């Protein structure tokens, strides 16, 4: 079995909560919720939108219209700077593993509407799509070589991308890996989630008694992983690492989680086993916490069973909305920031304890003392993932 360690040397984040680590921490400290009207397109779907208001650098060329790629690259460059890897040494094998949902389909409504009318629309949207595979486009932009995969596991994509990248490092397939997730706000998931009846027209309230559904958001969260040998060769010291990752399927339903959360339970147990720790070592959990009735009920059941009712946990979707393929990447970064700063923010949107959940998230900024934190993700298709990160003393 392969059991070498995986260091985390850099993080990058962009979401409605902030365009970088510091602005995100400020948002968390203030308990601010930056939702707005949906832009830059018109939509009939009404919801508080958690979008990135700041202009993004324009890469030009074929990626000019690709907002997901632009969000991803914003976070990637931050993470590489944080890792002091803005210039990757020649010969370094750099893996790219990224999760997304919007960027994996040709879902341009104007293109398709024209196609349906026999108008033979220009093919630029098709070429955009063919050139926009997130991992491939990122690797090409960075001019690096190594394994590349774009994970399309719906809402657990970002977490799974980090898990896969950690495997690459442990297996010696690359020296460095850039991993996480990115997604933009777009009309197709808006319409889809609306059709499923799981969206709220009010700001979302994860784990609250009166929760009424999710709000969509956009953003990107990335980490830089390194093999200890490579990191030490450039004089880095270990501060954080991927301690464990687990993934498990419900084998139950296309969209609904298993009522007893058996997949999530198995994923968390697998992550704990890989980290070789017991549940009491987890100082806090950054839960998936979408604020839908089913998700929060299932997640609360599993968390309370595995960690007990005193577990300190939160959902950061009250600050970012549900960013789909980006969520796992962002929430891994937020878990790392919690360990680094020794505090976690109030679980935004939570006001009233839901007695039937048997567990409640933190309602105010909370001090954290411990080595390990966990981030969980539940996805369409019944996939569940858990990531454990560690602050090295």
């Amino acid at each position, binding site marked *: *079995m*392969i*059991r070498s360690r995986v260091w985390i040397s850099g993080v990058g984040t962009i979401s409605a909560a902030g365009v970088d680590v510091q602005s995100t921490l400020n948002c968390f400290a203030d308990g601010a919720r930056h939702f707005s009207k949906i832009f830059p397109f018109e*939509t*009939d*779907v009404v919801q508080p939108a958690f979008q990135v208001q700041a202009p993004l650098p324009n890469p030009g060329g074929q990626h000019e219209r690709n907002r997901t790629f632009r969000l991803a690259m914003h976070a990637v460059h931050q993470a590489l700077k944080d890792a002091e890897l803005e210039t990757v040494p020649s010969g370094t094998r750099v893996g790219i593993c990224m999760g997304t949902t919007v960027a*994996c*389909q*040709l*879902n341009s*409504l104007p293109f*398709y*509407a024209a*196609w*349906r009318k*026999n108008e*033979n629309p220009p*093919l630029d949207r*098709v070429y955009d799509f*063919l050139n926009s*595979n997130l*991992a*491939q486009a990122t690797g090409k932009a960075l001019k690096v*070589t190594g*394994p*590349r*995969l774009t*994970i*399309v*596991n*719906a809402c657990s994509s970002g977490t799974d991308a980090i898990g*896969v990248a950690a*495997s*690459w490092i*442990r*297996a*010696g*397939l690359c020296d460095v890996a850039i991993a996480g997730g990115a997604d933009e706000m777009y*009309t197709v998931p*808006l*319409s*889809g989630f*609306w*059709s*499923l009846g799981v969206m709220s027209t009010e700001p979302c309230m994860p784990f609250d008694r009166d929760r009424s559904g999710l709000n969509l958001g956009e953003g990107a969260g990335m980490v830089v992983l390194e093999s200890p040998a490579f990191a030490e060769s450039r004089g880095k010291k270990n501060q954080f690492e991927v301690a464990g990752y*687990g*993934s*498990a*399927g*419900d*084998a*139950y339903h*296309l*969209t609904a989680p298993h009522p007893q959360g*058996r*997949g999530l339970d*198995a994923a968390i147990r697998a992550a704990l086993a890989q980290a070789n720790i017991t549940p009491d070592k987890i100082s806090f959990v950054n839960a998936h916490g979408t604020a839908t009735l089913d998700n929060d009920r299932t997640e609360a059941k599993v968390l309370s069973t595995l960690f007990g009712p005193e577990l300190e946990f939160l959902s950061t979707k009250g600050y970012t909305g549900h960013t789909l393929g980006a969520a796992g990447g962002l929430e891994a970064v937020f878990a790392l920031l919690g360990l680094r700063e020794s505090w976690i923010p109030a679980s935004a949107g939570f006001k009233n304890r839901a007695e039937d959940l048997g567990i409640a998230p933190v309602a105010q900024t909370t001090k954290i003392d411990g080595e390990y934190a966990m981030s969980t993700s539940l996805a*369409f*298709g*019944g996939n569940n993932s858990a990531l454990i990160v560690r602050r090295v003393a």
Partner: protein
Amino acid sequence: MSDDLPAVSILGIGAVTALGRDLDSISNQLTPVYRQISESVKFSHAPFSGRPQGGVDICNHAPTRSCGTPLKAAETGVVINALRVNDADLNLDPAMGAQLRRADRFTKMAVAAACDAWDMAKNSCAAIPPERIGLFLCSGFGPHCRGFKFLDGVLDSGETASSPADFSHSVHGAASAYISRLLDLRGPSLNTTDFEIGFEEAVRVAQCWLAEDACDRVLIGAVEELGAVFLSCAARMVEGTPTIAPSEGAVFLVLARTDVAGAAKLSATEPPAAVDLAIVEDPVVLPASAFLPAINAKRIVTFTSAFGHNASASAFNLLGGLLAMRADASIDTAATLRTSSEGRSVTLLLEK
């Protein structure tokens, strides 16, 4: 490539292709291909001599401009040949079929191939707990026809009245959800998308899972579906240039960590120095930057004209290699050679 990543055993194979679903039949149709080409690199753009069971559809714009209808002869414009899977090859036993009533063609192809692979491997998997069986599905385009059907709903009924079933089936993981539920697979599950060497990368991750003891078996596959939108776009993109028929289908394998007697070994690796059978893409579909790695091969063959071309072509090439090894005792090693548009090469190496 790390020395720590051991080859894995292939315990089961399932496939739904334009050549059919029965492995012996597919093998018989492929045999002339790899027997004809020997000791020298020869490529032919001529059509495959054996007519695929699924027939050849002449596709361009579907007459109704709706993805819900079968592909039919083009009314106007550029004509492109496409190799479709025969609908009869998607049949499952009634109990299982009943659970697929909302599923689309993409999912049905995936389920059919996955179930066949699982069935072949079931004896060696019977004692494995569901939590120890992983699932990996890769695709370039995913269930895009269902995605366009969802867009039909958005355009026709409005954003707030679209179909939840079309939306939930349009995500890349929909087929995996069906497979995991039907076969009760509860281990790690991944869906990936790539247009070049995604299947090779998937095999590497499956090797990692098994090496790390994340699971004891991996059901891994690739699925591609033909659809009117992309076919019409492809027709416009390749107009006036030689091309290979786009195709659809699914290939699934059951992989195990353990060394199983009689099972072929698989690894994603650097191109080996020597191999009995080298499998390459037809040059017509290779990127301009691609070039074959230096390799000493007794035979070099392309299955592209037999299976057609799609974003998961490596999986179909691997299937061809496996069937060739099964049918021909002189082939002990086979390797797919594929190069990305940036010149990255990963080989899928098969060993008896």
